[in-house]
């Protein structure tokens, strides 16, 4: 109920509240929301995990997911003093061009995607290549809840509780050879169920491709996610398997992965191929390097109300500088954007 109050009533003029007070207001709100969610717990036995967060739409999770959920390590990584984005916003404001160019398209069209059965191909410079059924692929790993900031290159951001496991664990399992220097990811190509891939006006050369340097991929913050908000991933958020790299712009966190390849050379990635002067291979969140079409110094933390715009300074590496900055010592981040 709290969340439905019009945000416009909160603030009469666009005046800037000191950050400390602002953050404590959020904590207060978050706390009372969590209280509400907890209060609602006894009534719903099966939806217990989902109702860790307010207004989470129940999904139809596959059996393997429900089994894994029981052993989940909740709140393994959290974000201090920042409220989690409402589920509705995180699932109805998406960039997933396979389902259309507008923010609402993925939620509207994502239903057509078939995520079961799903298989993932691991190939390239690995000791154990193969095609894995998704349930076998995820079997060895314990799910962890990682609450991360997500910063889109379009200058908006959210805070999302993912469920997943470190990519490093997967990579160790498949035994990269000494020639492996990069990891390349590929999204499903399925024009029949992905209307965006049928568009004659799309500039993207499907399938969507992304990549990481091997040491980036091995970093403990980089995860493969299978769920969010205590449930399996909704299709519009990249079901059934996606990458989450919180210190990079959102487009690096590739969705609906069907192929993971270890390679020797830096792989070509979709947006870099489309506009190399706008989207680099690294795409680290960096307030000092602008996108040619807009500034990256600040971001709109969503939800951002009409009369109380929630605009904040963007942090270096999206606030994960302490953890990841050492990956890039000696690298000119202006050139390697």
């Amino acid at each position, binding site marked *: 109920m709290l969340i439905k109050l019009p945000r416009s009533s909160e603030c009469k003029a666009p005046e800037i509240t000191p950050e400390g007070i602002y953050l404590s207001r959020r904590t207060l709100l978050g706390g009372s929301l969590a209280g509400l969610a907890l209060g609602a717990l006894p009534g719903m036995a099966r939806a217990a995990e989902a109702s860790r967060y307010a207004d989470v739409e129940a999904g139809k999770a596959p059996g393997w997911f429900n089994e894994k959920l029981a052993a989940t390590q909740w709140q393994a990584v959290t974000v201090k003093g920042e409220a989690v984005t409402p589920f509705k916003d995180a699932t109805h404001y998406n960039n997933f061009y396979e389902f259309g160019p507008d*923010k609402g398209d993925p939620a509207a069209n994502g239903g057509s995607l078939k995520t079961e059965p799903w298989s993932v191909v691991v190939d390239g410079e690995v000791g154990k290549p193969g095609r894995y059924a998704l349930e076998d692929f995820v079997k060895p790993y314990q799910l962890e809840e990682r609450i991360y900031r997500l910063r889109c290159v379009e200058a908006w951001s959210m805070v999302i509780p993912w469920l997943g496991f470190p990519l490093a664990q997967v990579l160790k399992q498949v035994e990269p050879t000494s020639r492996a220097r990069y990891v390349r990811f590929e999204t499903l190509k399925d024009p029949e169920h992905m209307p965006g891939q049928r*568009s004659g006006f799309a*500039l993207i050369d499907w399938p969507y491709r992304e990549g990481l340097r091997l040491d980036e991929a091995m970093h403990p913050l980089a995860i493969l996610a299978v769920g969010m908000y205590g449930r399996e991933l909704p299709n519009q958020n990249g079901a059934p398997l996606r990458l989450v790299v919180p210190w990079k712009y959102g487009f690096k966190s590739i969705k609906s992965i069907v192929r993971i390849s270890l390679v020797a050379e830096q792989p070509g990635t979709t947006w870099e191929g489309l506009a190399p002067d706008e989207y680099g291979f690294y795409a680290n969140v960096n307030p000092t390097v602008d996108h040619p*079409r*807009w500034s990256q*110094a*600040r971001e*709109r933390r969503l939800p951002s109300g*009409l009369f109380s715009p929630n605009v904040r300074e963007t942090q270096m590496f999206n606030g994960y500088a302490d953890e990841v900055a050492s990956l890039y010592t000696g690298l000119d981040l202006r050139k390697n954007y």
Partner: protein
Amino acid sequence: MRYPWLRLVIFIVGSLFPVWWLYEAAMNLLGPDPGKIMMDRLGLGALTFLLVTLGMTPLQKLTGWSGWIVVRRQLGLWVFAYIVLHILAYLFFILGLDWGQLAVELRKRPYIIVGALGFVGLLALAVTSNRYSQRRLGARWKKLHRLVYVILGLGLLHFLWIVRSDLREWAIYAGIGVVLMVLRVPAVSRVLPRVGRRQRRAV
């Protein structure tokens, strides 16, 4: 005043959309980023009004009805009104009223520069849209108001440079714009009244 009802209907339609969008935003129906959506809709609204405005002359030629020309000025002023709101939304919701940043954007971003040029053009047309200016400028008035074709080009370019991955929507607007321009090519515009007469006779 001729065709008062038609003028009133256009006035109501023009003012209804922003009011409706504001209501949607206030009721949290626009999603988590309503400021951006408002700005986008106002921009598209302005482009739509511009295309409708440019459709009036060909329609008049085709149908022979003078009502189309009578409402042309009001339609043009709606283009201006929507663009003013579009820019206010940009300043308020996207820039957060950061004037220093605005100076940077106006220097560095081609699509902002093109959009700003389009606005300056529209401003000139809006300011001279009254009878007094028409009298004072005389023959030059018509020349000045041909600027609207340049503004259409700037608007479409501004729109094109915002497109990230799918050209469909842009292609529709641009396609209509091209048709409206082709209808102004003398060879084409000369035959329009004849085509209209033949159609009416057939009916």
